[in-house]
């Protein structure tokens, strides 16, 4: 697994021994586990790091789990991160979880069943990684799209220029044809420069300098010229 594909898991509990236990429990998932001991620390963490899921102890001194969750959901950046509450046995889950509309919210009752904790977290991690993968793909696609545009522009430039040159050749106007090819190369160079993001392309890289070789017989046909274009 490459670092790019690791998900962050935030664990919030005021008791260090619980944190230690949870960290060990999540270890086999090979993700990036961050442990903090208060709601305040959790909120701070969320400011500069992205997480796939938050495990949140409900009973904490100071800001309790529900208040922490409320604040997390208030922030645009973190409101869609799934939260799993860790609660006591007597907890009325249905009532407590009402009112959370944004993002997934779930709960686990202590004492924790280790297998269930791990598989629940794994589901959120998978979801997160899948979303990240889709985002990366989309970014690559839009990069491809830009390339495609530039390729089309290059294509148009060359086709247009060669059409002029080809007509001139066919009509026996070699000077005209030479000029058209020169202009086409200049234009192609400009577009290629854009494509490569710098100005390193020299027309000489495309066609060796030297006496222009002008066909004396008929010019080679341009694809699409003859009638066999039927689809």
């Amino acid at each position, binding site marked *: 697994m490459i670092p790019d594909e690791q998900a962050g898991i935030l664990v919030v509990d005021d008791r260090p021994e619980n944190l230690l236990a949870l960290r060990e429990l999540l270890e086999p998932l090979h993700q990036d586990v961050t442990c903090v001991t208060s709601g305040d620390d959790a909120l701070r963490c969320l400011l500069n790091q992205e997480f796939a899921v938050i495990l949140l102890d409900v009973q904490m001194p100071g800001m309790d789990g529900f208040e922490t969750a409320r604040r997390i959901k208030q922030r645009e950046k973190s409101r869609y991160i799934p939260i799993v509450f860790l609660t006591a046995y007597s907890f009325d889950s249905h009532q407590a979880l009402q009112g959370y509309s944004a993002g997934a919210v779930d709960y686990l009752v202590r004492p924790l069943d280790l297998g269930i904790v791990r598989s629940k977290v794994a589901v959120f991690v998978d979801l997160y990684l899948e979303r990240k993968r889709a985002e990366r793909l989309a970014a690559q696609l839009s990069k491809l799209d830009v390339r495609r545009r530039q390729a089309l522009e290059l294509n148009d430039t060359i086709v247009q220029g060669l*059409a002029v040159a080809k*007509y001139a050749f*066919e*009509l026996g106007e070699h000077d005209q044809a030479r000029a058209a090819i020169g202009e086409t190369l200049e234009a192609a160079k400009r577009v290629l420069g854009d494509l490569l993001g710098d100005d390193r392309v020299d027309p000489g890289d495309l066609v060796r300098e030297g006496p222009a070789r002008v066909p004396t017989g*008929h010019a080679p046909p341009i694809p*699409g*010229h003859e*009638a066999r274009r*039927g689809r």
Partner: protein
Amino acid sequence: MTTHELVVMGASWGGLAALGLVLSGLPRDFGAAIAVAQHRGVEPADAVLADALARKSALPVREVHDKDPIVPGWVHMAPSDYHLLVERGGTFALSTDPREQYSRPSIDVLFESAADAYASRVVGVILTGANPDGAAGLARIRRRGGFAVVQDPATADRAAMPEAAMARAGADEVVALSEIAPLLTRLCGRVPATEQARP
């Protein structure tokens, strides 16, 4: 007396050189209008072909717009990706109907509509090319009393198109490429410049 008022020409593979040669041989006071369907790919910009031919010809070369009048002494080019048709009443029409013989503009479409509208007053000219487009159109021109000219296949870059035309339509004259301009000038006569509308 001149009876031919319209010359329609069709060309495909190698057609531009042939057209250039024919057009450069026509005099400034050429007596008929000319309409040309040249097969080619879709051009990325307007009128590249008309501009190229204009350099070779003493006559004005124009790409046709819909319902343009047919002007004596002008060379009217079918635009890329449109069919060019001749209407009664001395105008052109364009269409975006499907390709015929894989071509748009199609030579048959131009020739058949010219035959219908101009009957015996039209001359059809088939030049070099590698497909049979134009043969049916030339046949219709002959049936309607028009005059059929076919480039001698021996002088054509590609012989298939003139051969197909001769097989299907026959011809009133089969002549070498270099003889086409003088022949057309004899058929269509010359008009004093003052009588012609010049651009």
